[in-house]
């Protein structure tokens, strides 16, 4: 399956390589560099590259290309999904999966790669299992290790791997037993110039932080489970229970994990919580810029952390604007306007207006740039999803339970 892995940083250095079968020369990456040169931006490189003898499948994350080399037919998603899982694991271990973190922890990285893949086939990818095999680094342990010479490898058996709950480690113990559930929904939308919705849907996830002792068996039920029509589950969720009773029944992994992610399709009406009234015009040598943001269908909640970004056309030289609220910056190199609005006050709508100056001599752009909007609304799930109750079986103690709702803008774009 996966023969070798090369990590390449933005400067084009192959700073780490790992081979699971016989060694493949790093010159194979030349094909990759060739493709990379053709692309305008790092994201534009084709993820699957075919060379005479090898197939290069890569992902680009944290400014690093993770290039997997395969020699035979393999489902490309298999490799891509695995590579993402590798990066997720690094992030989980080191707090960030970037180049510095990998270099600083190269021994652990190497041990992880060794455990995750055997002969090119995934062996252990569950974070709970890996953490039992190889302890994540932390300051205290580093100090202790240097003093005592002990290792960060555990010599005990990861019990989870062998039980029928492979995602949970055994013998978990906490003094405070707590379980937190964050229902986070992101609105993806395209709004046209007139303010009508071209396309909108909701992507939701329930992220959990479960710190419970023993082997708790949790049941999470919703007030309105019918909203959850298109769902993907963490392997711990019992699918049959969901099918028959529409409750989430599961033995949770220890710590942070994503319980489900769901998609509320464009067929349903999506309440758009903000509107943007743009008025951008260009003429020879300059132009006008006038944007107003306002709340709409917010169900009485405050819209916070509003940020408006707009990638202006290349001919724009500078912008001279005045906001009624918040601060704005214009990056004259990347030509990106960012306006940090903050909270929207419904009484006094935030507005940003002013002049645009263009490069002299060049014709004014004929199309207006799209505006993308970021915002957050606390304590509201825009789909209307509500957790009904959480029950725990199998353990005696009473856990502390908490549910939080948050609506965010995902890919929220306004055409002007």
């Amino acid at each position, binding site marked *: 399956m996966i023969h070798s892995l090369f990590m390449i940083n933005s400067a084009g250095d192959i700073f780490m390589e790992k081979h699971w079968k016989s*060694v493949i020369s790093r010159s194979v990456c030349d094909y990759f560099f060739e493709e990379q040169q053709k692309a305008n931006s790092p994201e534009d490189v084709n993820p699957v590259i075919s060379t005479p003898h090898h*197939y290069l499948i890569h992902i680009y994350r944290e400014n690093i290309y993770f290039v997997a080399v395969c020699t035979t037919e393999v489902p490309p998603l298999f490799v891509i999904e695995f590579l993402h899982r590798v990066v997720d694991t690094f992030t989980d271990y080191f707090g960030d999966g970037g180049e510095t973190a990998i270099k600083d922890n190269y021994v652990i990285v190497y041990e992880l790669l060794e455990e995750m893949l055997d002969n090119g086939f995934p062996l252990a990818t569950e974070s709970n299992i890996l953490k039992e095999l190889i302890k994540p680094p932390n300051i205290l342990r580093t100090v202790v290790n240097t003093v005592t*010479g002990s290792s960060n490898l555990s010599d005990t058996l*990861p019990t989870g791997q062998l039980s029928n709950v492979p995602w949970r480690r055994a013998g978990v113990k906490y003094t405070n037993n707590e379980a937190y559930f964050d229902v986070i929904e992101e609105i993806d939308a395209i709004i046209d110039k007139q303010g009508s919705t071209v396309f909108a849907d909701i992507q939701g996830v329930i992220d959990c932080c479960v710190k419970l002792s023993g082997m708790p068996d949790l049941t999470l039920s919703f007030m309105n489970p019918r909203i959850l029509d298109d769902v993907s589950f963490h392997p711990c969720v019992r699918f049959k229970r969901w099918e028959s009773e529409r409750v989430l029944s599961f033995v949770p992994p220890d710590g942070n994990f994503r319980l489900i992610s769901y998609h509320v399709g464009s067929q349903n009406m999506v309440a758009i919580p903000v509107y943007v009234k743009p008025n951008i015009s260009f003429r020879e040598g300059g132009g006008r810029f006038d944007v107003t943001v306002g709340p709409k269908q917010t169900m009485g909640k405050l819209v916070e952390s509003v940020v408006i970004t707009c990638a202006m056309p290349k001919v724009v030289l500078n912008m001279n604007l005045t906001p009624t609220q918040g601060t704005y910056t214009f990056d004259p190199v990347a030509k990106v306007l960012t306006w940090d609005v903050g909270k929207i006050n419904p009484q006094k709508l935030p507005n940003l207006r002013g002049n645009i100056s263009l490069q002299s001599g060049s014709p004014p752009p004929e199309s207006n740039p799209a505006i993308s909007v970021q915002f957050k609304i606390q304590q509201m799930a825009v789909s209307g999803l509500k957790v009904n109750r959480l029950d725990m079986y199998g353990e005696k103690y009473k856990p502390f339970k908490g549910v939080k709702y948050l609506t965010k803008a995902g890919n929220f774009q306004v055409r002007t």
Partner: protein
Amino acid sequence: MSNGGGSYNAQNDSRAGSTGEPDIGTEPTGGFFSADYKKHDDLKQMLDSNKDNLKLEAMKRIVGMVAKGKDASDLFAAVVKNVVSKNIEVKKLVYVYLVRYAEEQQDLALLSIATFQRALKDPNQLIRASALRVLSSIRVPVIVPIMMLALKDSVVDMSPYVRKTAAHAIPKLYSLDPEQKDQLIQVIEKLLADKTTLVVGSAVMAFEELCPDRIDLIHKNYRKLCNLLVDVEEWGQVVIINMLTRYARTQFLDPNQQDAVADDDKNFYGDEDEKDSEEEEDDDEKEKTPPKKPYMMDPDHRLLLRNTKPLLQSRNAAVVMAVAQLYHHIAPKSEVGLVAKALVRLLRSHREIQHVVLSNVATLTTIRKVRGMFEPYLKSFFVRPSDPIHVRTLKLEILTNLATETSISTILREFQTYVTSSDKDFVAATIQAIGRCASSISEVTETCLNGLVGLLSNRNEYVVAESVVVIKKLLQMQPDSHSEIIQHMAKLADSITVPMARASILWMVGEYSDRVPKIAPDLLRKMAKNFINEEDIVKLQILNLAAKLCITNPKQTKLLCQYVLNLAKYDQNYDIRDRARFIRQLVSPAGEKGALGKHAKKIFLASKPAPVLDSSFKDRDQWQLGSLSHMINQRASGYSPLPDYPETAPDPTVRNVEVPMPWAEKTHKKKAGKPKKEAFYSDEEEESESESDSEESSSSSSESGSESESDDDSKSESGSDKEKKSDEEPESSSSSSSESESSSESESESESESEPDTKPQKKTPPPKTKSSAKPKKEAKQEVSLLDLDVIDMSSTSAPVPAPASALDVLSPSLASDLQGLSINDKKDTAISVTTPMFVSTTSHELLHRMTGEGLAANYRFTRGTCIYSTSMVPVEVTFTNHTDSPVCNIRIGDKKLQAGMTLQEFPEIPSLPGGGSMSVSIGIDFKDTIQPANFQICTQDRKYNVSIKPPVGELFQAVTMSEADFTAQQSKLTGMNENSGKVSIPSQHNNSKTITARMSELANVAPVSSSQDGLYRFAGKTVSGGTLLLVTVKVGEDNSANITVNCELMAICSMLVKEVKQKLSQA
């Protein structure tokens, strides 16, 4: 790990240094340039020291070198010594190093082998597994035999983790020495039979790497794989689903046959509007379609589809994709739509996943029949400015494919916004997409053309140029009535500079010069003026234009044409020179009019076929969806195309695993001399009969007792006929058949008359049972017993009688012929399964009628051979309905069994009338433990959790053996495997009859003849594992008795001793 980081940076080579990486240089040895070999000396010293700290530090630095791809092979000798290190981290890092360099230093690598061999015997499974992993990863051909041995040991290891590692080792070993293939396939076969979810994924992976064509290995495991699939880890799921797709293609019929036939009919009746391509497809299908017959989906086919469906909700994109391709390739077309939602959900994932998913969706949307499933999700494919370019083009492609009369307006409006994008390539792609929409949907062709013409006045030259090219293609399809567009474009020729667009305009004006008779010559004039400055492609089109005009309108253009040809004659490009010469010969009457000149008009002004604007993904359909080959649109090495469906379904019975093995074996053996086929068919027939029978008897509840018996008789006759034909000794068999008939009749009579508490063993005719009973014999008895029980309880037992009936006909003489053909004949000792001495009639409560809301269930151990599997304990469950209304759909629901345990369910009881009762038999493989089997009994609307806990004695099967064998076996089972106790037996019970009776009541054991007085011996073996159990009761004076139990299973041993004590001391 800051110290580790320091060394990693310190060893950065010059290249890393040059990129501005700060070289910290915390190491005393300094930077990279300070003599490499010296540094290695330093490392060697550290490795040779006896401090773990130093070793670890050295190993970390070495691994850092390995990670950066620097050569560290000269340290091999120093490193390999440390393979014995006690420090587990040092050890791990040494492993990493070994795996990397062993190939290059084969001789030295051999030094480490002994360590691994020792570790393979370690009690810790983790150590065993890692030893096997490293041993198999060392690519040194010399050790292949050692690896093979280790592998074979590990395959039967207790720990599933080790077995999983063993599965991984198989492809490694194969790549090292392909000659081991046959042996390895045997190993794979063993692993495929494994029931642990941890192992099967890896086993199938090994199967796919080594012998994907050995589909026969899958048959027996097919259903198990389908059922385990949901619980297998995600990577294994992908591999298994892909394998099962291929399997289904070879084993099941095309579920879309009927559709194909229907479509054919439609075409036949003159549905001419269908696209050509589709007709082709249909034609293909027509050729494949066998004579029409109603299609019934194989239940196994359905099982696969049903069990993979939940996986569409996996969080792993690869799993979702695998299920999607499975549905695409083997599901009926009407069900494929399910996957659309899941695929669309993946579009929110990482960019790379989007790319792969989109290209697969693009392929799906080119197929007309399944296109509809994505239509509801049209808007999910709208392009966002943040999408990378390849994602955008794919989305455009999909939108274009999805365009229909209804959605086209939405799509075109969307396209309009894309055209204003600042990315030129994307704009060009959009315009082409508009062109394709226009050509495929005739209703909007006009609108699109107008829109494109509108774009001609766009300020962006690329937009204009691309529009010209697309308009040219569109006009070519319907050139009539568009002369004004052609005029308009001819005017554009002055302003447009993009060569391709200019060339397109010229071609169009030339082709349709009759529509613009005034403009065309003028255009040629303008072009001729600027000929030398044009691009080659434009020059060629100018030549073409000149030639065409010269033919149609020689009066005005002949001179111009000459001028252009003269210019072209001296062009730098030889293509143009050639073309000029060629044209001159055709059109210019300079020389004597050549033969070709007459045909010049035909040659130049022939009507040209309109170009077909097809999706570039059209041809990708040939690849298996989701495969690498599909992604790169070329055959990746190791890709094997999906086979076509077979024309007739291969035998579906090969997947049956529940068929009771003893029968099957017997049939084969008996007919050894005959062609295999015959045995095979008769086998099948028996089975189908039994199936139908069981259905029948289960549906009719109360009266079937007598009825089924008569059925049996008739059937047994037919069965005996068959045997008559095939048997080598006709006379004996004929006599046998008649005899057996009578005997079975008489038996059944006696059964019906007998009292409920009749002990079955009394009835079995002793002269026929030789000391070593045959399996068939035993089966026969068991069945008759069951029949008896059935009558006892005034209810019917469903599936049991049928297979038995076929055996009832076997006469004693035939039976004695078959002596020694028992399943145990492989063993040397004459230990054979025998009939139980005693069958309890007391039943235990499974479900109380209060909890069951009127439905009560009792169970009873029947002590026979289970009809489902020899390793199962047969349990008879009797349902009684205490209510007045019938209870419907009684079946077994969720099973919560201990790992390894299996439970064979009974066929669903459709309805149990009020006050009625019914017995069914289930089989449970307890794996020789007394763990209860927990499961649910479901009725139409309720579920009840119940559990069956076997008494220890029911885990056995009675076996007979000689006294000598008994003592021989007993001597092997001493020490830990022996358990004994003392008990005093009440004097009135101290006789052989009571002791034997009590023993056989307690456990399913058979007495062994004893030469000593006061010494009773009993033998049995466990049903699941076949472990021998020996019980000795030695009665001494004053009524005290010594009990000795010998059995490998220590827990069972001690439990049994307790129970025997209790039983024997009863007053």
